[in-house]
């Protein structure tokens, strides 16, 4: 069950998107998300969806794999849609019991659903095609100017990449501890909220202990390999823009121009 989460996972294959500089992908994703909130009509959304479709095609990641990752956040999506549907004031469409659906509500619920879906798929395209290390490298380099105001850019990037490396390991561990406690008669599924929260103790205590032990081991291993912060480090895979990266930037800007013009002004 826990293994179904694909958000933040890397999908290994060879594609233009995989080779692209992480800064392009980071920047591109950011601009794409902004565009989703600037677009105000459905023609605009069609353009956004088309653009994303082309990008997915280029990434060579199976669409099915991406959709699988969506399952885990469908609940969040539903809640947002329902809130919009019932809580937007405006011209009344239908009233069921005490809940009123308005025209504006329907409109904003649908566009919210489209926006969120595109947003989630859009950002998962980035994580699926970029190794977490590469991603943090990109962030580190993009945020380097912040170092002047004493933001620990390298440290933050390193922490993120370590966290990402240990997520699958800790998920597996959770699964194992859970099974072991179930074998000792633990019940994680029935009872009220309080009882369930209490039932988590035999899972969480060992998990935390294990995480601390791992952290301790890892710190020692890093020190043994001469890690001493970002100063004086060289890079195995230094980031530098290629021709394809500039082309990608141009494509993104073109999309932005078309999308926003159509999505806000023309219709």
């Amino acid at each position, binding site marked *: 069950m826990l293994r179904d989460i694909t958000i933040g996972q*890397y999908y290994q294959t060879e594609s233009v998107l995989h080779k692209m500089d992480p800064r392009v992908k980071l920047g591109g994703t950011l601009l794409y998300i902004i565009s989703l909130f600037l677009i105000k009509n459905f023609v605009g959304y069609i353009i956004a969806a088309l653009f994303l479709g082309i990008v997915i095609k280029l990434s060579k990641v199976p669409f099915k794999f991406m959709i699988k990752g969506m399952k885990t956040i469908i609940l969040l999506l539903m809640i947002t849609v329902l809130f919009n549907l019932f809580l937007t004031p405006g011209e009344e469409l239908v009233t069921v019991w005490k809940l009123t659906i308005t025209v504006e509500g329907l409109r904003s619920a649908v566009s919210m659903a489209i926006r969120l879906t595109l947003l989630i798929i859009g950002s998962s395209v980035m994580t699926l095609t970029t190794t977490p290390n590469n991603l943090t490298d990109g962030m580190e380099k993009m945020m380097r100017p912040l170092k002047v105001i004493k933001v620990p850019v390298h440290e933050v990037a390193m922490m993120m990449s370590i966290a990402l*490396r240990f997520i699958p390991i800790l998920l597996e561990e959770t699964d194992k501890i859970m099974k072991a406690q179930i074998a000792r008669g633990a019940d994680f599924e029935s009872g009220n909220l309080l009882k369930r929260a209490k039932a988590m103790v035999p899972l969480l205590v060992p998990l935390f202990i294990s995480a601390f032990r791992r952290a301790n081991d890892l710190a020692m291993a890093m*020190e043994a390999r001469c890690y001493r912060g970002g100063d004086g480090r060289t890079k*195995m895979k230094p980031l530098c823009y290629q021709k394809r990266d500039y082309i990608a930037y141009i494509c993104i800007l073109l999309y932005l121009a078309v999308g926003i013009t159509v999505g806000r002004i023309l219709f």
Partner: protein
Amino acid sequence: MGIIKTKNVVYEYIRRDEDGNVEGITKAVDDVNLDINQGDFIAILGHNGSGKSTLAKHLNAILNPTEGTVWVDGMDTNDESQLWNIRQTAGMVFQNPDNQIIGQVVEEDVGFGPENIGVPTKEIWERVEESLRAVGMYQFRKHSPNKLSGGQKQRVSIAGVLAMHPKCIVLDEPTAMLDPNGRKEVIRAIRGLNDVEGVTVILITHYMEEIIHADKVFVMDQGKIAMEGTPREIFSQVEKLKNLRLDVPQITLLAYELQKKGILLPDGILTIKEFIQALHL
């Protein structure tokens, strides 16, 4: 002086009770003297809690001795200014393969050490390639470490240390969490480093069959060196090893049992071949 030398090394830690009061002092390492020559394959044996891992952490300045001195390639580990040179000279591989791999991709992990010591990009790639080839993991360079077997992960860890071009590698129970096949893989890789690359190896273990090829074996108990000698000399003392919570290979034990019954056999038989020869069959 050898590549690693320790003189009267003592390491104490203070045990405290729940309120933080001192309960007592434990000597995890007690008056240890070692002198290890460049290029040797050294095994340090001992039961769990014998102090062997604590000693190992002194050999690349993760721990500093309470008393006595440790020299790595002539550098005193108490000398802070030499810290990074010491760690580069004596690399370390730990027990749990999951907890020492930093990279998300095999090659990135192997590159981590060279990056830290400021090796230029082009040379990092050369070092990564040669290290991965040395442990037979080159074809896995693009893989995620999470998808590898325990033995493969441990070989990646070894490559990660090797890429820093150390003169000496200390391996702290690298096979304790592996299955028999993984153990064999790792031991083969370690022997290769020693034979082919001439790296000094210090292997800490409690598996007896892994030390047969060592040049010299130290057995630890209660923080002290309880025995030292060649594998044959060590394995000749079956009773003493058993008292130290250790074991001997089945063939050695069998020869020893027959000896006790009056069959004439030399001490410390290590292989089936030796056994058959000694029986004049």
